């Protein structure tokens, strides 16, 4: 369907067409065939979950949790309402892949969600789209209307007794609403604050009903896997890291943008695709998985391949695949100040360590950046970050702590220099 093997483009293949987001383009290239086959042939959900497990598709939103396993947690036989929710609340600095899927290939997501609805027994789905990309939300609404009119969404799809309604819901730009339970609260019309887990969404999700939440790219990969089989997807990546993945390369490269490459591709190749470091500068550091992932110095990064396991081994996270490239001109103190401000600003304020700690860290880093640092500040920062991490309801606390800890670990001397000389090293 959507691409001729052996291309590695699973989600980004429509970009070169004239009307990439249109239903016509999608259908002309095999779109909605997977959905039709699944529904009309009544393929058992277990078979599809088995294919997902075989494919080693791991969640593309940041945690890298195996999708097949997540789907198997859903009480599919539960008689009441169930929901499938897509997390398109892409708000992490450096991440801009899901918006391109929504912009250029919305129907693949719609098809993926309908298949998910079929497998998981959900008759209703929601796609929660980040509030700051309203234009994208409108594109997706148009795609939804197209799909409804063409009979790919709605009642009795393809003349069967399977019905599936899909709704788009746009947020208002809060980063925290990308946390899955805060996202559910937000859909319910409440203040976007994470829920304590357990209970997990699979048992108590949207409106208290069993709910599966997946990232946009994850769900968009499902039709491909259904069409070509889990093994084919796995072979596009490496063991335990199935398929290709979109990497949002930003920062000091010549050609920033989204690149869909096989998992396991060496970082150096990805950097090459993005045109290399700008102006012939030297690479200094890379945040490989979105702003909450620990930063890695150039030396370590150049030895990594772009997959979950390799980056984890190097001490960071593949996360959502947002690669932030920093060249030698970057002052790491200033970079961290900006990151710390983000987490300070986006903390929901619900639980103590994050509410109080993110502001504390930001203020100390700000002082250092502005030449008012004290020698004891570095230990203090490390200590405060350590006290936030692991003590909060959701992962935002960890996300705020990890950049601080990693910047200090790899670039501590720059911070010490700042404290001592009251100016940048670079």
């Amino acid at each position, binding site marked *: 369907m959507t691409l001729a093997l052996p291309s590695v483009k699973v989600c980004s293949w429509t970009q070169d067409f004239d009307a990439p987001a249109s239903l016509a383009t999608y259908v002309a290239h095999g779109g909605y065939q997977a959905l039709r086959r699944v529904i009309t042939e009544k393929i058992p959900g277990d078979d599809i979950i088995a294919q997902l497990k075989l494919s080693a598709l791991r969640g593309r939103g940041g945690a890298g949790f195996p999708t097949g396993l997540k789907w198997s947690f859903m009480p599919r036989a539960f008689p009441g309402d169930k929901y499938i929710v897509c997390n398109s609340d892409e708000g992490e600095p450096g991440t801009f892949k899901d918006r391109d899927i929504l912009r250029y290939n919305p129907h693949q997501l719609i098809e993926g969600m309908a298949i998910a609805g079929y497998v998981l027994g959900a008759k209703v789905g929601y796609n929660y789209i980040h509030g700051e990309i309203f234009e994208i939300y409108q594109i997706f609404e148009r795609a939804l209307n197209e799909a409804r009119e063409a009979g790919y969404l709605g009642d009795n799809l393809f003349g069967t007794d399977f019905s599936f309604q899909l709704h788009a819901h746009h947020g208002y730009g*809060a980063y925290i609403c990308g946390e899955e339970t805060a996202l559910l609260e937000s859909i319910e019309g409440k203040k976007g604050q994470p829920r304590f887990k357990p209970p997990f969404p699979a048992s108590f999700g949207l409106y208290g009903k069993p709910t599966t939440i997946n990232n946009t790219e994850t769900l968009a990969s499902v039709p491909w896997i259904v069409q070509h089989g889990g093994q084919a997807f796995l072979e596009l990546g490496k063991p335990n890291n199935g398929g290709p993945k979109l990497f949002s390369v930003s920062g000091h490269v010549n050609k920033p943008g989204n690149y869909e490459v096989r998992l396991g591709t060496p970082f150096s190749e990805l950097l090459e695709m993005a045109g290399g470091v700008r102006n012939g500068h030297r690479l200094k550091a890379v945040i490989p998985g979105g702003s909450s992932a620990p930063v890695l110095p150039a030396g370590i990064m150049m030895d990594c391949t772009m997959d979950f396991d390799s980056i984890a081994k190097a001490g960071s996270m593949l996360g959502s695949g947002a690669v932030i490239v920093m060249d030698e001109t970057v002052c790491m103190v200033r970079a961290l100040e900006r990151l710390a401000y983000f987490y300070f600003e986006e903390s929901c304020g619900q639980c103590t360590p994050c509410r109080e700690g993110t502001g504390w860290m930001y203020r100390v880093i700000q002082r250092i950046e502005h030449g008012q640092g004290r020698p004891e500040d570095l230990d203090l920062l490390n200590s405060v970050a350590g006290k936030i991490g692991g003590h909060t309801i959701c992962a935002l606390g960890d996300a705020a702590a990890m950049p601080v800890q990693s910047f200090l670990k790899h670039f501590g001397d720059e911070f010490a220099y700042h404290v001592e000389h009251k100016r940048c090293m670079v």
Partner: protein
Amino acid sequence: MATLNIEIDGKPLQVESGDTIMDAANQAGIPIPHFCYHKKLSIAANCRMCLVQVEKAPKPLPACATPVTDGMKVYTRSDYAIQAQKSVMEFLLINHPLDCPICDQGGECTLQDLAVGYGGSSSRYQEIKRVVREKNLGPLIATDMTRCIHCSRCVRFGQEIAGVMELGMAGRGEHTEVMPFLETQVASELSGNVIDLCPVGALTSKPFRYSARTWELSRRPSISPHDSLGSNIEVHVKDNKVMRVLPRENEDVNECWLSDRDRFSYEGLNTAERLTWPMIKQNGQWIETDWQSALQFVADRLKTFAPEDIGALSTPYRTAEELFLLQKLMRGMGSGNVDHRLRHSDFSLDALATGSFWLGMPVTYMSRLNRMLVVGSNLRKDHPLMAHRIRESVRWYGELNLINAHEDEFLGKVNAKRIVPPSQLAAALAGVCIALAELKKQPVPPVAAAYRAHGGLVDDIARRMAASLAGGETRAVFLGNMAQHHPTSAQIHALAQEVAQLAGASFGVLGEAANSVGAMAVGAVPHHGPLRSAAIQGRNAAEMLAGSLKAYLLLAVEAELDTHDPVTALKSIEGAEFVVVMSPYKGKSLDYADVLLPIAPWTETSGTFINTEGRVQGFSAVVRPLGETRPAWKVLRVLGNLLGLAGFDHNDSKDVLRDALGDTPTGNVQAYLCNEISGVAAAPAAPGPGLERVAEVPIYQTDAVVRRSPSLQRTLDAALPVARMHSQLIARLGLTENGRVSVRQTGSALTLKVERDDHLPDNCIRVPCGHPLTAHLGPMFGPITAEPV
């Protein structure tokens, strides 16, 4: 429920599955520090103070929110756990002002207490601290929002207990603030509980502010003297003065809550209006005198009247001992003229009733009812904490049905409601009764059948209520204050009883006041009681106040506020030859009394209240009587001696109670409780051609103490009375909304502001009673006229 084996701090425990680590630790008596957790509120897990170490868990887990699993090993005091707890404490303190020396919470502050164990001796936080703007939460709750640690207890209390989310968490991150959605007042009648819930000094009591430190206060148990729940309270006393009132936990009565009326009424104890010397009026002049002279004077004068010309009236807010001695005194003199039902207007059940009307069930059952019908009640204002229990039933999928003359927000889901003029409450009830009989294929009870032709409407609403009452497992029919006060109260009672019988429901009367049941049980009514004899006939409150008596003995009665028809009552009392007022306050009685005897409010005497479920709750004095004030039971006892009556030789109030109720600890009160009546003849009445008054006693006008509490009088609930009416009526009468109207009943005309209330029947004008402004209007119900000013 399976039993699980777990271990906390090496101590093996067996707990129920579904319990949290906090539950298990509480059972085992292992303290875990916490702020946001509260046993009566939902789990928030946001303070993170209760983080503990759980074996095999990758990070510390909050004890309040983590369910136990079999074989779980928990360490609450390990280095790992303590480090996590200390981390949280450091974060809590960095933006906390640490102004304990000037904080009212100091000494009873959870943050202060836990900081001793988990806080550092100095702060590593060198940045600028957060300052939060104060919020205006009204006259009862003082705020110091900079101290807030965002535990969200107050917010959850509003949502889950008070039923109205008046406080919310606005803003995000460090800028998160607890605030009222509208910068006005927090108006819930249960609002004061957030003061207790607040673990820091962010929300404190405004009336108590800066008046004492917690360690200076003696804590003395007592019982609240206002609504018929009989909330258990702890009175805090300094220098023989009541400084504040807090709830005393009793799961069977008030749980850990207190209504604002119970909590803040104490302010009325310390006002300048207190009567502190016995006084006699001579030649129109009030002269302070001593007790001996005053009582001798009263006894001598009383002896000059024929017993049947003397009437004794009391409010139902006095103790059982006082009420017992009052009726004993009257019956000793040979008169049955004694009553406490000052706001009642239908006494036709007296001949038929065999006991005290009561709740019909323990109070705790009210939290788990499947089907309810409440007739003629201003639930939230009359019974704030019983309304909370009914809300709890509703939250557990119980169905509440209401028949009432107005539609005040209940703050919970209502299955069906019927709003009718007060005169049609009985007819509305008859409609439900008929619908229920038809649904159950039972014969329609005769008392209901008679209403068929007189507005006993069997329509969709009646059928919906009937269907609701036919379902469920636990059902109840309750009568509220309006149903008891109304001239058709006997009809309502009889019909409600039939509905309950048909539904298989429990039938209860929501007690009007703190000692309504007690007053009946000790015989402070003409028709009933241990000392009543057929030989001595008596008159009821309405008859006594209708004007034929020569002498009145008033126990804490403020005739212009406490009676069904204050105009008639005042005229009768003013026209009497001799009026003795026993009261803690001077009040208007200065105008019409001949003798004023200062008696103790509940804080200055021992005594007993019997609540609406028949619970006998004794209490002791918490402070010495003010000035020459004396407990009323002593006054009555001496008066009995001076009148030469037998059986007035009690040594203490316990003697009086034994005399009244028998030797058993709770007396034989249970034997007096009976709602059942038989033999009421149907008396359907069509609505009159004119307008009807709907009156209720405002929540902060129920009794003399509450009326004098300055802070409660500043709340929205104590706003000046207005005339509420339907917009159609406003138009019909040629009035304008928020304009003025002149209303008139039997008394003088009164000009009030017009307020629109489209939930009222369109032939009713709602004007509250029990308020000085409306005291000269007339009876609580019946015809009323209105014209533009």
